[in-house]
């Protein structure tokens, strides 16, 4: 029965995504290739002081990304530290320096890791003017970087990779904002609140008191899902009835998290002039997604762990209205994109179910991954895949007519090494530095035994992959974790972006080589299989030992 419902819900999702794949993917391709600026955009470019016709080299594109992101970090940091001076602060004091540092980086890097409990930490102005703005722009930055890489691959003769400012504004104004407006209204209709009422004190039926929160939630919720950001307006994120009021809203939210990442392969195919390339990438992404969501659902329905078995079902940390299946559908989607929202507490998932959430992130979030980040992630893996195939047949590998030479494979390798290095180093330092270890074990870890190790491993996996979900029992609001996770998020976001844009520049500078009989076709099932194998082998080699110490040890004890 559960499996039948699971299949029906997954089928609904697949149908909705299939319906929008071509129109949305084609539309996004038009957005990023159209030579025309609207009148409003021209005015904005004049105000900002950029020439939209200016084509940037990869290094000036990168400098613009970094400058814009640096300003973002400073803005969000300042807004938090000055919270008491802002309207709608709800009398909440300014968060500490290390927490503000962590939160600023978290939202600028599209991670939305939250070391804090929002309803007792941040007023409406910081959430709306600080955090939700970053939800828009960090998503637009992600798409822009992916598009820059695609332009590099598509360029026929020493082409440019575009203009960052134009890509940023078009992403926000033509894609994210219109979609968010529609989405937010639908969410309000479903029960998500949108007001500035603060807390409403009511006398409950039995004569007790309850303080019902308010806030501009729907507007933030919409972009939180669409931009694969994931930061909750409330502490428990979409498990909160005001963020995730019901079952159909949940399917809608899952759709929102997937809609842009799953349509971007179409955009990619369009821009490189071969839609079959898009379908191949889509096939790889969808296969991993399907396997993953099935595995997590199976683990949760089976109900591992002594406490779960005593309860009769894995309902600790889950909402009645969602049950197990909508919780795993949401949890998988959130961790395999870079969203990190939750509608159930992953810390209370069964050992292998919670382990799947980690595996999803460790796969590099490429199935379909975050907005933009998923596409550039899987394209880098595709480059590695054609390289491996090239080694097997002894030919110089090429991808879409671009030679994969020493420089390209170095950049792709650096990209792939970045995240595992950050995850493993962060976790290792947390347990390796004696004073830090005392703090981690004494203050931060919530659950005893190997599950406690998993909480720390999960945190660094989440930060390095810019996911933002957590085994939330972990108390992360400490100087060490706020700082270490902040640095991890920063490097986990921008080092890959440096390598991707360098790749884009290197492809754009190349001419194209014509395909020959010896060229590996990258639109056939054979290549999809090769791509899948590369994703799995790269992450399995990097992470298997730590998984064995955490969720595997707990699940197989």
């Amino acid at each position, binding site marked *: 029965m559960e499996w039948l*419902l699971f299949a029906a819900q997954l089928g609904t999702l697949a149908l909705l995504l299939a319906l929008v794949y071509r129109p949305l993917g084609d539309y996004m391709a038009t957005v990023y290739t159209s030579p025309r600026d609207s009148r409003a955009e021209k005015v*904005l470019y004049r105000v*900002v*002081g950029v020439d939209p016709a200016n084509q940037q080299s990869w290094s000036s594109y990168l400098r613009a990304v970094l*400058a814009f992101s640096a*300003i973002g970090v400073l*803005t969000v940091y300042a807004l938090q530290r000055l919270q008491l001076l802002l309207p709608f602060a709800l009398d909440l004091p300014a968060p500490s320096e290390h927490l503000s540092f962590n939160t600023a980086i978290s939202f600028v890097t599209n991670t939305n890791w939250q070391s804090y409990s929002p*309803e007792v930490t941040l007023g409406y102005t910081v959430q709306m*003017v600080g955090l*939700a*703005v970053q939800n828009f722009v960090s998503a637009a930055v992600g798409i822009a970087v992916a598009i820059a890489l695609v332009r590099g691959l598509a360029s026929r003769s020493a082409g440019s990779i575009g203009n960052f*400012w134009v890509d*940023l*504004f078009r992403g*926000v*104004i033509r894609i994210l904002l219109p979609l968010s*407006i529609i989405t937010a*209204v639908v969410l309000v*209709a479903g029960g998500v*609140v*949108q*007001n500035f*009422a603060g807390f*409403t004190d*009511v*006398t*409950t039926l039995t004569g007790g008191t*309850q303080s*019902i929160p308010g806030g*501009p939630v*729907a*507007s933030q919720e919409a972009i939180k899902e669409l931009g694969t950001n994931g930061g909750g307006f*409330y*502490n*428990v994120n979409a*498990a909160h009835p*005001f963020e995730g009021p*019901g*079952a159909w809203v*949940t*399917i809608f939210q899952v759709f929102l998290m997937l809609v842009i990442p799953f349509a971007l392969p179409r955009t990619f195919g369009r821009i490189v002039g071969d839609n079959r390339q898009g379908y191949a990438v889509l096939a790889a992404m969808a296969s991993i997604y399907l396997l993953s969501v099935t595995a997590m659902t199976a683990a949760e329905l089976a109900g591992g762990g*002594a*406490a*779960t078995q*005593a*309860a*009769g079902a894995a309902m*600790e*940390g*889950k909402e*009645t209205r*969602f049950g197990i299946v*909508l*919780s795993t559908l949401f949890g998988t989607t959130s961790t395999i994109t870079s969203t990190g929202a939750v509608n159930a*507490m992953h*810390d209370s998932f*069964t050992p292998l179910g919670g382990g799947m959430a980690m595996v999803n992130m460790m796969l590099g979030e490429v199935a379909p991954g975050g907005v933009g980040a998923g596409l550039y992630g899987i394209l880098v893996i595709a480059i590695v895949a054609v390289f491996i195939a090239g080694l097997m047949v002894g030919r110089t590998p090429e991808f879409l007519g671009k030679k994969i030479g020493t420089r390209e494979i170095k950049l792709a390798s650096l990209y792939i090494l970045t995240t595992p290095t950050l995850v493993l180093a962060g976790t290792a330092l947390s347990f390796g530095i004696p004073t830090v270890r005392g703090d981690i074990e004494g203050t931060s870890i919530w*659950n005893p035994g190997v*599950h406690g190790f998993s909480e720390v491993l999960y945190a660094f996996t989440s930060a390095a992959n810019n996911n933002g979900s957590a085994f939330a029992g972990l108390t992360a609001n400490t100087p060490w974790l706020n700082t270490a996770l902040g640095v991890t998020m920063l490097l986990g976001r921008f080092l890959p972006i440096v390598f991707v844009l360098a790749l884009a520049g290197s492809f754009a500078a190349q001419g194209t080589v014509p395909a020959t009989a010896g060229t590996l076709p990258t639109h056939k099932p054979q290549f999809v299989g090769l791509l899948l194998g590369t994703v799995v082998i790269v992450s399995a080699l990097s992470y298997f030992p730590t998984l064995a110490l955490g969720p595997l040890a707990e699940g197989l*004890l």
Partner: protein
Amino acid sequence: MTITRGTSRQYLVALRAMIVLTVITGLAYPLLITGVGQVALPAQANGSLVTVDRRVAGSSLIGQSFTDADGTALPEWFQSRPSAAGDGYDAGASSGSNLGPTNEALLDTVDERRAEIAAREDVAPADVPADAVTASGSGLDPHISPEYALLQVPRVAAERGLDNAEVRGLVESMIHGRDLGYLGEPTVTVLSLNIALAELDADSAN
């Protein structure tokens, strides 16, 4: 020198872009949604509040506890799930327990709850459903499963001197099926059920 000037120009552009985008996405957009919400969908936008005797008694989306000040269940009401939000259903402090699946503390808590509920409802421990012995993710779950609601019928009916079948009929009429027949799980909203129960009780007293 040119590098410095170029760099500072870059940051000025970035700053202006941030300000412009903040005005659009951080002010205009949420205010537009607030306007639409307050005009077209005021009930939902303001938290789906429910009133009893023209007094706001809570939200149909936010669970409440039906216990005394010490947290002991009041037997004349249908009980909500266990809650890890503050002292229980503290709407200002949403939280799950975050206890892990192999945590002894959770195992003990689940066993205690099961024994307590089995005694309260006078049923075999094995008949207590999972949602009754586990805390929700939010700590504010407004629902219980139909099984847990039906399990509570004899106790509530006896406490209030109501007819068992009548109370059971009330519960059955308030079971909300899966959305569109296949999304999510069937639920009973505890606050709405208890409000209807109080009305039923008042009617039969007259």
